[in-house]
């Protein structure tokens, strides 16, 4: 790795902590960002010469704070600009820098930084975009590419979201225990959204959007480092790792979806699975189940199955039942129906999803599953109707192509049947 690559890794790793602290000092997002940018520029100049500091975050906070204060003074036209050597000679300052930083604050700093991005007035996509910009430090161009929109559109979206955050005011008081856990839940939900944004893409887009999944995993690990004893954060991190472990097997070379049961399991990332399973184990010991843990436990059962036939569908059915109680939603029931179809057959599964039709009338996966179940039952006419609905609702070309495959099969079957009848 080149020196520049090392520096940029160090800076991006230090970013959440440094930005969080600078936001606490300046109580203003723009001022914090400016100060951080300035500190980064000085780091690029200083680190190659003097070697990397032992604690990059402390260095960036210290330098960023000084330069931010300078900027405020400059604007106030009070004192002349301080000399460069005041900030460039950091060799001695570095050792007592850790002292100056209030270490106890850093958890709340990072949490606050993430939390202000989850403002309830902001639509989910804006929350994500702003978090990726402010917390992760991705460039607008990178974010625009991941969201498949133009750079200027994304720039506008982020600027608007930031203005909204500024209007809302940043909560600076140190949170109490209840508030902290509420913030943590909101932030966890946002990390999950970032992951989903990257995950629910089709083959052609998967490469462009994979960084979203990786960034979500990085943020989840960061949260877990800050809140080591939270089983739901273990569950969240495990869930993302176990899902992302399957990424190399999810699409074939033409970008078409490969269903879980057809995936080449040797392509799954063993390392991510091991880490995910370890976290599920750790979480379960707390006996404080929650939705992320249950979803991680389901993903773990898939990861543990050596072949699709080895999948423990009975246990998955039970876990979805638990999730339904915790988070009642037609989509959860729909997922449960897949497990039910394996354990008790397509008829039982169909009975389970039929009451959902009204609420899921705009949902691709509902009609995909309904069509599949009807096809298994040999009710081809009805299956065809469901598949047609699914195609109309497909979000990606890969989804549509997948359903088309089923329809083609149905057409072929009915053609064979009718030619059979003719020959009779």
């Amino acid at each position, binding site marked *: 790795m080149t020196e520049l690559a090392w520096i940029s890794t160090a800076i991006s*790793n230090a970013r959440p902590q440094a930005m969080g602290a600078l936001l606490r000092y300046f109580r203003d997002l723009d001022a914090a960002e400016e100060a951080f940018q300035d500190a980064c520029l000085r780091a690029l100049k200083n680190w190659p010469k003097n070697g990397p500091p032992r604690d990059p975050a402390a260095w960036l906070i210290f330098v960023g704070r000084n330069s931010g204060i300078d900027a405020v003074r400059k604007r106030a036209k009070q004192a002349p600009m301080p000399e460069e050597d005041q900030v460039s000679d950091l060799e001695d300052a570095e050792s007592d820098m850790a002292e100056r930083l209030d270490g106890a604050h850093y958890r709340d700093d990072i949490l606050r930084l993430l939390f202000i991005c989850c403002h309830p007035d902001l639509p989910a996509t804006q929350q994500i975009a702003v978090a990726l910009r402010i917390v992760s430090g991705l460039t607008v161009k990178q974010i625009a590419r991941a969201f498949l929109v133009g750079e200027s559109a994304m720039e506008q979206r982020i600027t608007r979201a930031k203005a909204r955050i500024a209007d809302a005011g940043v909560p600076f008081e140190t949170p109490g225990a209840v508030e902290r856990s509420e913030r943590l839940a909101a932030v966890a939900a946002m990390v999950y959204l970032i992951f989903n944004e990257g995950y629910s893409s089709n083959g052609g887009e998967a490469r462009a959007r994979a960084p979203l999944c*990786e960034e979500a995993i990085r943020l989840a690990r*960061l949260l877990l480092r800050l809140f080591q004893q939270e089983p739901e954060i273990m569950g969240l991190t495990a869930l993302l790792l176990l899902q992302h472990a399957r990424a190399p097997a999810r699409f074939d070379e033409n970008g078409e979806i490969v269903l879980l049961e057809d995936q080449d399991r040797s392509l799954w990332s063993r390392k991510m699975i091991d*880490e995910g399973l370890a976290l599920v184990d750790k979480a379960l010991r707390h006996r404080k189940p929650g939705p992320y843990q249950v979803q991680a436990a389901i993903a773990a059962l898939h990861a543990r199955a050596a072949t699709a036939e080895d999948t423990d569908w009975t246990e998955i059915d039970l876990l979805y039942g638990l999730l339904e109680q915790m988070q009642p939603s037609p989509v959860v029931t729909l997922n449960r129906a897949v497990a039910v179809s394996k354990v008790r057959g397509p008829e039982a599964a169909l009975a389970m999803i039929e009451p959902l039709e009204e609420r899921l009338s705009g949902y691709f996966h509902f009609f995909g599953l309904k069509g599949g179940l009807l096809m298994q039952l040999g009710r081809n006419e009805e299956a065809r109707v469901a598949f047609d609905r699914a195609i109309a609702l497909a979000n990606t070309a890969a989804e549509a192509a997948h359903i088309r495959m089923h329809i083609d099969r149905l057409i072929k079957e009915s053609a064979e049947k009718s030619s059979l009848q003719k020959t009779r």
Partner: protein
Amino acid sequence: MLYAILCYASEDVVCSWSKEQDDEVMAKILDVQDKYAKAGRLGPVARLLPTTAATTLRKVKGEAVVLDGPFAETKEQFLGFYTLECKDLDEAVEFARELSEVNPSGGSYEIRPVSVFNPTKVAV
């Protein structure tokens, strides 16, 4: 004398390497190991999952308590170890130096003489 060479580095940095970067570093580290393995001097080697996957059992007032996370929160984390047969400390230092040259994560290697060694084989 058998030495343990214990690796410490910032796991934030190491975990954020892309798969390509990680593979590249690991290939270089393997080259260093190979040389010593061929000479019959390299013992068991392990790379550990991140400390977020760690659990610590600690005795508190005579009672074993299971805690989440690593033994201590530190700026650099214990990420893995090597064991190496060396005739003296200089040789062990040389091995650590070669490792550090191919490892861009910064970090440190703690060189500790081994007292009891029981390399029972497990199927991995």
